C-alpha cells in the first residue's frame, strides 16, 4: 500500500504527532480539489516548532480511509496536536477519543479557529487536555515544550505583524496518499483547481477582515495584525518558483482588496519583481471595488488577478441587510458591470478575460422567494461567473449563528458540522423550494425581471461617475 504517513520515531524525547484534519480519504481519492488544500495554520506552527528543535511526526485523517487506520497511525504517541476548524471539529473530537483509547496517558493539545469561536464546545470535550484560544504562534513553542505549566484553557498570542512569521516550510505539509493523486498534486505545492494552471501556491498576505458580516465576523476574534510586506510575498514566490516551478496563486486572504497603500505597492512591484506574473485568485468586496474602481481595474489588468472572488451573497438589499454585509444591490451590480467592461476590453485585445468566483448564499432566515429570485437574477446577469452557491449555515462564532443557535433554530450539531452546500441547516427554511429553484423550476420568475435589469443598467457609465 502507498502510505506516506506511517509514523516515524521523533527522537529520544516525547513522541509527538501532529494530526492534520479533514474528511477521511481526501488525500487518497478526493471528491474535489479544495479538499486537498493544505492547512496554513499547521504549516506555520509546525515550522515554528521545528525551527525551535521540537520535532513532530505528521499524520492526516485525510490520508486514512477508515477510523481503524486513524487508530493505527495515532498509536504509540505521547502527544497529539491538532488545529481545529468548525468543519473539522467532529473529526478532531473522534480522533482525540481514539488517541486516548490507544494512548491512555497521552496528552491532546488543540487550538485553531473553532477553539477561538466556540470555546464552550471545545471545553466540553474531556479528551482535549489543553485548548489554545486565539492565535497560537507566540505560545506554541512553550506549550509543546512544557504543557504542564499551562492551564487547560490557554489564551494564545499572535505576532504583531505577518512580517514576523517565518516562511512556511511547505515540506511539513501532508503528502498526497495515493499514486494517482501524487501524479497531479505537485507536492509541496498544491494541485490545480480550475482557477489557474498548476502547480498552485496558496498563500496569505493579510489575516483579518475588518468587516462584520454576521455569518462570518472573524474580526471579533483575531486582533488586527500588520499585512505581510509586498517584497516578502514576492521573495517567497520567487523562491518557490526556483525550487518547484509555480503555475498560479491562490491568495487565501479573507479580504485581499483592502488597504489601498499595500495594493498600490503590489501593483507596482509584483509585475516587475516576480519571476513571472502568475495569474491569481483573490477576494474583494463589491463596496470596496466601487470605492476604488481604478485601482481594481489596474490590478485586474496588470497583475493578472484573473479570478476575482466576491462574496456577493445576495442580490437583494433586504437580505444584504440581514447579513450586515454593508454592500448594496447597486454595489454588486456596479462591480459586475465594471468586470464585464474590463473583460470585454481584454478579450478585444486578445487577452484572457477575468472571471468572478462568486459566493452566493440561499436559505437565509428572513429571505423571501422574491429575494431568492433577485439573487438568481443577479447570477444570470453576470457575464463571466463561476458561482459558488451554498445554503446559509449558522456557525457558532458568527453573530447570526450565535443568535439562531440560542433561538433553537440551528440544525447543526457537533457530531456533524455540515460543510456541504445542500445540507439542511436551519429550522423553518423551505429547502424544497431552494432545491427546485436551483434545479431551474422557477427560471421563468428569475428571468422575468432580467430584461428590465439589463435595460436599467445600460447607462452604466453613469453609475461609474456616481461612485
Amino acid at each position, binding site marked *: 500500500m502507498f502510505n506516506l504517513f506511517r509514523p516515524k520515531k521523533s527522537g529520544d524525547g516525547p513522541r509527538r504527532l501532529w494530526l492534520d484534519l479533514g474528511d477521511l480519504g481526501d488525500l487518497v481519492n478526493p471528491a474535489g480539489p479544495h479538499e486537498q488544500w493544505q492547512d496554513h495554520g499547521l504549516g506555520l506552527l509546525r515550522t515554528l516548532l521545528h525551527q525551535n528543535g521540537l520535532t513532530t511526526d505528521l499524520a492526516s485523517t485525510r490520508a486514512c480511509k477508515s477510523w481503524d487506520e486513524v487508530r493505527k497511525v495515532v498509536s504509540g504517541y505521547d502527544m497529539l496536536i491538532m488545529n481545529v476548524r468548525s468543519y473539522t471539529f467532529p473529526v478532531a473530537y473522534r480522533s482525540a477519543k481514539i488517541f486516548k483509547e490507544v494512548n491512555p496517558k497521552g496528552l491532546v493539545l488543540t487550538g485553531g479557529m473553532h477553539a477561538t469561536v466556540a470555546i464552550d464546545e471545545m471545553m466540553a470535550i474531556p479528551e482535549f487536555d489543553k485548548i489554545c484560544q486565539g492565535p497560537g504562534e507566540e505560545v506554541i513553542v512553550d506549550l509543546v515544550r512544557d504543557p504542564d505549566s499551562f492551564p487547560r484553557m490557554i489564551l494564545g498570542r499572535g505576532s504583531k505583524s505577518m512580517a514576523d512569521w517565518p516562511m512556511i516550510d511547505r515540506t511539513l505539509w501532508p503528502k498526497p496518499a495515493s499514486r494517482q493523486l501524487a501524479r497531479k498534486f505537485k507536492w509541496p505545492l498544491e494541485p490545480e483547481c480550475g482557477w489557474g494552471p498548476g502547480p498552485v501556491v496558496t498563500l496569505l498576505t493579510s489575516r483579518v477582515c475588518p468587516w462584520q458580516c454576521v455569518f462570518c465576523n472573524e474580526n471579533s476574534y483575531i486582533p488586527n495584525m500588520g499585512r505581510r510586506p509586498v517584497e516578502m510575498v514576492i521573495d517567497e514566490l520567487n523562491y518557490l518558483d526556483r525550487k518547484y516551478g509555480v503555475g498560479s496563486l491562490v491568495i487565501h486572504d479573507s479580504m485581499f482588496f483592502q488597504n489601498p497603500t499595500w495594493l498600490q505597492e503590489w501593483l507596482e512591484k509584483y509585475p516587475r519583481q516576480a519571476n513571472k506574473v502568475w495569474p491569481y485568485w483573490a477576494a474583494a468586496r463589491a463596496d470596496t471595488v466601487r470605492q476604488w474602481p481604478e485601482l481594481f481595474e489596474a490590478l485586474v489588468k496588470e497583475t493578472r488577478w484573473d479570478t476575482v472572488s466576491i462574496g456577493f451573497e445576495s442580490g437583494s438589499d433586504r437580505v444584504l441587510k440581514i447579513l450586515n454585509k454593508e454592500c448594496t444591490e447597486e454595489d454588486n451590480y456596479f462591480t459586475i458591470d465594471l468586470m464585464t467592461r474590463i473583460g470585454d476590453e481584454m478579450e478585444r485585445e486578445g487577452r484572457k478575460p477575468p472571471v468572478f468566483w462568486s459566493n452566493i448564499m440561499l436559505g437565509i432566515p428572513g429571505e423571501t422567494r422574491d429575494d431568492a429570485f433577485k439573487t438568481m437574477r443577479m447570477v444570470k446577469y453576470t457575464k463571466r461567473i463561476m458561482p459558488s452557491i451554498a445554503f446559509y449555515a449558522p456557525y457558532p462564532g458568527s*453573530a447570526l449563528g450565535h443568535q439562531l443557535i440560542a*433561538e433553537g433554530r440551528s440544525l447543526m450539531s457537533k457530531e456533524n458540522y455540515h460543510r456541504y452546500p445542500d445540507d439542511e441547516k436551519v429550522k423553518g427554511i423551505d429547502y424544497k423550494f431552494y432545491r427546485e429553484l436551483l434545479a431551474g423550476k422557477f427560471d421563468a420568475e428569475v428571468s422575468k425581471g432580467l430584461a428590465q435589469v439589463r435595460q436599467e443598467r445600460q447607462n452604466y457609465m453613469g453609475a461609474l461617475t456616481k461612485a
Partner: protein
Amino acid sequence: MYLFDMKNGKKKLVYGQSPEDALEILSYRLPPEEMEQIIKDKYIKIHQRQLQEHVHLLG
C-alpha cells in the same frame, strides 16, 4: 450591535445603523409574536469584540 432585553429575561442580538434600524432588520426574519417579546427601549450597544461575553444570555 445592540443587545435588547426580552420579556422572558433573555437578550436578542440585533444590528443596524440605529436601534430602530436594527429592529426593522430583525423584523425581516422574526414573526410579530416573537418581535413582541423584545422590550424596545431597553438595550445596550456592544462592540463586536464583546460579543462572546454575551453569548450565554441570548435567546
